[in-house]
């Protein structure tokens, strides 16, 4: 026992000696400044004459910051961490490095803060590389058009507002309309889909984040997910940094040729944090007191989402930014900015939410500019008529309230529309697989549901899916593997739907 302890201590001493021998103290001239003033999360520093914009600086107590304002006789710095420990006269060293975050495969399944350090209490993350937080977006020659779908598992999105890999689709709506729920559902549905997910929480309550993490872990989604957290209690500078950290991690995976989905929840809080920093740095305020470069703040972030062509290594980053509106006002500064940057938006409405239409997607105002190119062929086929059905329903719905004498055709459209709305309802955390969505929508658009009472549509759908599980195997297989059904599969599906419907109608 004693000898074991001795050998162990000898080993430690030997290792220590080796490390000390390897150590050579670098002697170099360093650029040093002094803190002149400290505001909330920002500092004004004298000296540092040759510093670059966005260069990292180190404070004497170990905190880091980034130089944002380069003035004639001082530098404006944002501080990452507890700024109350910084005093006037403290030394600030220029590091000569642009801010970087440590990345590696081990980061999957972890919760990290805005500077990439773990905050989930599961120990250090072994990382192999560092990635710059600010990076120029991939150029035109390296890109490829978006044509591969991200299956969100949410019927209304996959059918009407499809999202492609490499697209930027905004989720916009008032508070409590299910924006985060959409995002979390999308992550949950990516099991086995070869898509790495990054959830960036900006200014969210820690309790909400904990809930999301728990839900993802229960659904087995943490295996392919990274959470970047800058909670509501953290300083504005960390909130400002978090989405860039998230996208740097995403770029690490994209550079390996992988597909990545990144969710920014939410960019309105990000803009507010940036406004706070900018005002403290005394940059001139503009509309709604946001600084002039708030558009660039988001455009440079979202431009980093892309689909790269095979020649440049492939891989993609799909971005789902979230914006919270106030009382449905989409014409405010930040919502209009982000709407114009993204390739479409999913618009969630409070009224629909309380009418029980959940997800509360306003199908009329939501668009996806990538459109049907990001859908599989089978979905394209069934969704084409669905869109038309819904549009006609919305148009006629208003008239129908006044008159009772409607012609047959109008009545038929109204009934179909009601059923379509019912079918597109979906509970939270219940993503539906693509082939099942296709089957249900097929039944709807081919008129199989027209004589099922509206209030029984949900029960019909549920029963149908259970029945098809056993009786439409060929159809499912064809849609999953070849992305389109053949006549054989279609015949099987038709037969199964017919059988189930007869059974259902006689029972009910």
């Amino acid at each position, binding site marked *: 026992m004693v000898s074991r302890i001795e050998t162990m201590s000898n080993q430690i001493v030997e290792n220590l000696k080796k*490390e000390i021998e390897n*150590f050579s*103290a670098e002697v*170099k*001239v*360093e650029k040093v400044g002094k803190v002149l003033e400290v505001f909330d999360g920002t500092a004004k520093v004298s*000296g540092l*004459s040759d510093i670059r914009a966005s260069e990292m600086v180190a404070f004497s107590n170990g905190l880091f910051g980034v130089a944002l304002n380069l003035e004639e*006789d001082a530098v404006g710095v944002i501080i990452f961490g507890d700024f109350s420990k910084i005093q006037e006269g403290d030394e600030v060293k220029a590091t000569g490095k642009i801010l970087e975050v440590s990345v590696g495969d081990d980061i999957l399944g972890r919760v990290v803060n805005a500077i990439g350090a773990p905050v989930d209490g599961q120990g250090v993350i072994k990382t192999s590389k560092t990635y710059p937080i600010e990076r120029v977006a991939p150029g035109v020659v390296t890109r490829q058009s978006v044509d591969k779908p991200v299956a969100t598992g949410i019927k209304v999105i996959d059918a009407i507002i499809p999202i492609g890999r490499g697209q930027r689709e905004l989720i916009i709506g008032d508070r409590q309309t299910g924006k985060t729920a959409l995002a979390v559902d999308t992550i949950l549905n990516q099991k086995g889909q070869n898509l790495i997910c990054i959830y960036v929480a900006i200014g969210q309550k820690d309790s909400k984040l904990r809930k999301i993490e728990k839900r993802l872990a229960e659904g087995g989604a943490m295996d392919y997910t990274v959470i970047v957290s800058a909670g509501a209690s953290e300083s504005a500078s960390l909130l400002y940094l978090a989405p860039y950290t998230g996208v740097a991690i995403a770029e690490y995976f994209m550079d390996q040729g992988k597909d990545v989905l990144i969710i920014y929840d939410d960019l309105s809080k990000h803009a507010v944090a940036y406004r706070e920093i900018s005002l403290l740095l005394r940059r001139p305020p503009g509309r709604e007191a946001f600084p002039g470069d708030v558009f660039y703040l988001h455009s440079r972030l979202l431009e980093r989402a892309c689909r790269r062509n095979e020649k440049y290594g492939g891989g993609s980053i799909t971005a789902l930014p979230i914006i919270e509106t106030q009382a449905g006002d989409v014409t405010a500064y930040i919502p209009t900015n982000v709407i114009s940057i993204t390739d479409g938006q999913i618009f969630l409405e409070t009224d629909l939410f309380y009418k029980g239409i959940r997800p509360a997607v306003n199908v009329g105002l939501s668009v996806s500019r990538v459109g049907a190119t990001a859908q599989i062929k089978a979905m394209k086929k069934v969704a084409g008529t669905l869109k038309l059905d819904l549009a006609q329903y919305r148009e006629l719905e208003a008239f129908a309230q006044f008159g009772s004498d409607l012609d047959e055709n109008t009545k038929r459209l109204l009934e179909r529309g009601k059923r379509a709305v019912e079918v597109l309802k979906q509970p939270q955390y219940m993503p539906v697989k693509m082939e099942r969505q296709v089957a249900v929508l097929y039944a709807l658009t081919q008129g199989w549901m027209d004589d099922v009472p509206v209030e029984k549509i949900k029960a019909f759908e549920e029963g149908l899916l259970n029945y098809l599980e056993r009786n439409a195997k060929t159809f499912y297989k064809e849609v999953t593997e070849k992305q389109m059904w053949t006549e054989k599969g279609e015949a099987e599906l038709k037969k199964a739907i017919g059988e189930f419907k007869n059974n259902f109608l006689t029972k009910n």
Partner: protein
Amino acid sequence: MSKISNDNLARAIYLAVKDKTPTERSSLLRNIVKFLAKKKLLAQAPKILARLGQIINEDQGVVAAKVWSVEKLSARTKGKLVDFLARRFGGKTAVLEENLDAGLLGGYKIEVQDEVLDLCLKNRIGQLQTHLTRS
């Protein structure tokens, strides 16, 4: 209107005063003070003076350095330091402002404007500490 910085003022003062005789200078300096008072710039006077000092040093090739050490520097070390600093920063000579700081544990710390050459023991031990904790 573009802002007149302390640097602009210091440079202007130096250029105005540079080639004048002592009698001319005293009246000129009085005018400068009056000008500063009129433009409400007297509060900036310490900063302007500091910058003026730097400009004069730059122009005359003098490297102004602050040196911290544990013990007082010997004449020989000082001579070596002056030579080294003049060479390193491209001046004709160097002026040392000596400070004592027992906290350095050993070695020197030299500061020229915003550049710092930290050769003290405290810094090296700190570097060793980070090296050992990281590896």
